[in-house]
């Protein structure tokens, strides 16, 4: 080893204080520069724009048209009680928007019709309903195929229709797999749902048609599409980080006076903005053309923002973990769709076994869907989705930190 020697070039200039390293530019300005640059690139990428802004709108329009409120869902109804109370329920169902009610003679007929798909769901008003109602323990049974996306819509409509008369427990049962129907499970579902409803007994709260919001069948599919698409697109956009890593650009970014946290925050802010633009578009289309009532902005804005943040964090984590862009793309899409399935975007988690429901809540989608259900079906407010929002914030923090750590590790060895 040669000892470091100082050159004796006589021309070496003395250190110029004016050129001593400037203080590092603030992280805030760097984040703004990074985000602006990413957005500039995104808006120049036609394919990306199509997939993130045009396609989701097209799909929501398509689904909205198919599931729109004009197409009523056929529902079979069996009134086994024959009381005034049960007749009132059936009448309400009959009058409900979005349902086309047909009476059936027996429970076996009803189950057969559900099984064959002749109806989307069956509603059984059991014998003794009026008496139970008097005791405040009335139950209405919903027979439906859990894999059908219409189930939640029917369930919401049924609950809305009978809500004025009774505290109702809609116990969903699997018609498709009747043998596997588990009473205990159904009871647990019923118990859980009962908690969500206003107290037992006949609750008479400001009855009136205006008070009861319209619910199209689209009400379930619209939020699930927002959640599903925002996530898939944002994760894909975030995973593009792997491409910039491969091209050595992220390394060069790290050579500027900024740390991995700042770099990720800047890129993440751009992905987040795109996700928000996308959600806003879909919400606007749903509200304007399909009469979807998304609830109050005070509640749905934080919900959309937090869920988009989770999606951006997942995308950046994938982009930081992947060996190369191909691997990132190969992982991002199936992971995003798989989490969507698990988290109740393809079918409602209310109709899956409790174990699957618990497992489903590993996916941020499940929390977002829980919150959307509160906002869209039950017209609740910010306070009622506080837990879901907190969980989504937790997802963001944990996944964001993981992404930052992984990126640092991938870059600096």
């Amino acid at each position: 080893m040669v000892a470091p020697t100082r050159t004796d070039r006589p021309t070496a200039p003395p250190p110029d204080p004016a050129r001593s390293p400037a203080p590092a530019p603030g992280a805030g300005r760097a984040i703004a520069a990074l985000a602006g640059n990413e957005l500039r690139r995104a808006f120049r990428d036609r394919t990306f724009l199509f997939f993130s802004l045009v396609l989701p709108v097209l799909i929501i329009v398509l689904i909205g048209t198919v599931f729109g409120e004009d197409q009523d869902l056929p529902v079979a109804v069996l009134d086994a009680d024959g009381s005034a109370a049960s007749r009132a329920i059936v009448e309400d169902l009959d009058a409900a928007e979005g349902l086309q009610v047909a009476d059936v003679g027996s429970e076996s007929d009803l189950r057969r019709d559900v099984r064959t798909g002749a109806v989307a769901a069956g509603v059984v008003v059991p014998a003794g309903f009026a008496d139970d109602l008097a005791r405040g323990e009335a139950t209405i049974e919903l027979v439906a195929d859990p894999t059908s996306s219409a189930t939640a819509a029917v369930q919401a409509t049924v609950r809305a229709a009978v809500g004025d008369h009774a505290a109702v427990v809609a116990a969903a049962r699997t018609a498709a797999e009747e043998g596997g129907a588990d009473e205990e499970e159904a009871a647990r579902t019923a118990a859980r749902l009962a908690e969500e409803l206003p107290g037992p007994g006949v609750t008479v709260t400001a009855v009136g048609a205006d008070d009861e919001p319209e619910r199209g069948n689209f009400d379930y599919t619209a939020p699930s599409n927002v959640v599903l698409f925002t996530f898939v697109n944002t994760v894909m956009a975030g995973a593009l980080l792997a491409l910039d890593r491969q091209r050595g650009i992220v390394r060069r970014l790290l050579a500027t006076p900024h740390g991995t946290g700042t770099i990720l925050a800047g890129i993440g802010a751009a992905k987040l903005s795109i996700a928000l633009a996308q959600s806003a578009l879909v919400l606007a289309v749903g509200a304007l053309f399909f009469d979807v009532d998304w609830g109050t902005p005070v509640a749905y804005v934080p919900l959309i923002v937090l869920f988009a943040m989770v999606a951006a964090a997942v995308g950046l984590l994938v982009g930081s973990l992947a060996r190369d862009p191909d691997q990132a793309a190969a992982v991002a899409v199936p992971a995003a769709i798989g989490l969507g399935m698990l988290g109740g975007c393809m079918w409602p988690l209310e109709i899956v076994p409790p174990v699957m429901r618990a497992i489903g809540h590993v996916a941020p989608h499940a929390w977002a869907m829980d919150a959307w259900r509160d906002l869209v079906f039950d017209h609740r407010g910010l306070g009622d989705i506080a837990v879901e929002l907190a969980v989504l914030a937790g997802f963001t923090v944990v996944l964001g930190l993981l992404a930052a750590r992984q990126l640092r590790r991938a870059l600096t060895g």
Partner: protein
Amino acid sequence: MPDAATVTDRPETSVEPVLQCRGLRKAYGERVAVADVGFAVAPGETYGLLGPNGAGKTTTISMVCGLLRRDAGEVTVAGRPMSPEATDAKAAIGLVPQDVALYEDLSAEENLRFFGRLQGLSGRELAARVAEVLEVVGLADRAGDRVGEYSGGMKRRANIAAGLLHRPRLLVLDEPTVGVDPQSRNAILESVEALAGEGMSVLYTTHYMEEAERLCDRIGIIDEGRLIAEGTRRELVAQLGVGDQVEVTGTGDLAAFAAACAELPGALGAEARDGSVVVRVEQGSTALAPIVAAAERTGVAVGGVEVTEPDLEDVFLALTGKALRD
């Protein structure tokens, strides 16, 4: 305080080096990419790291620039300790990575404005610097074109421009001329010479001996992760101990002439060949007159004289037993 340590280590130094690194080490699993590298770059100096493919040049540079965590060793840039989190130390460096690292979907100007902002430039200063560096690398007339549409040489020039924006105290260039045509290459070398001429310190890696000889005030020879020699070109060659070679063609008693040459002061050896005598001397320029006198003494009629100095290629061969390039 790392600054204090640096100063007490070299009490005789009045000028703080822009870059000081020592004992650098980095292993990837079993493979030791850099085993032991240390050197310093003085203000205004151009320092070359010369070594073959896989010698550890990029790994060394990555540690110098705080892009890679080191297993051992220290790096100080402009008196500040370097690490991946050391934003103040990084601000003093302008890195030009070995592979072009620019957004191909943006124009050169957009790339430069972006990287300039990250370096803390804004407004009129940013616009002025972008225009200046585009001028330096000769891309002003193509500034609005997307980098993806550039030729390989133009991309490399744009890549260099992005490292110059904030007038770094230390410009780090990692093999900036690999894979470019001779014209672009010359343009790149001229830009580096111009920047060095303005007093910028430069750390330059290459496996081209001619580039190191042309640009660098001092050169460190790196092989298999170790700095095996360091100095000016002349010092390195002198260290080799083989001296310059003077070949005299002529007619007459060449054997007697060779014997006379071998006795001259500063001669390391002489050998008569077919029609010529090859004399190895410490320094060719001062040995010429005595050699010609010896020819006259031994009655040899001199036809021609050629002096060849050993080059860095020879130094590398002598130090490692292998060629710099295969």
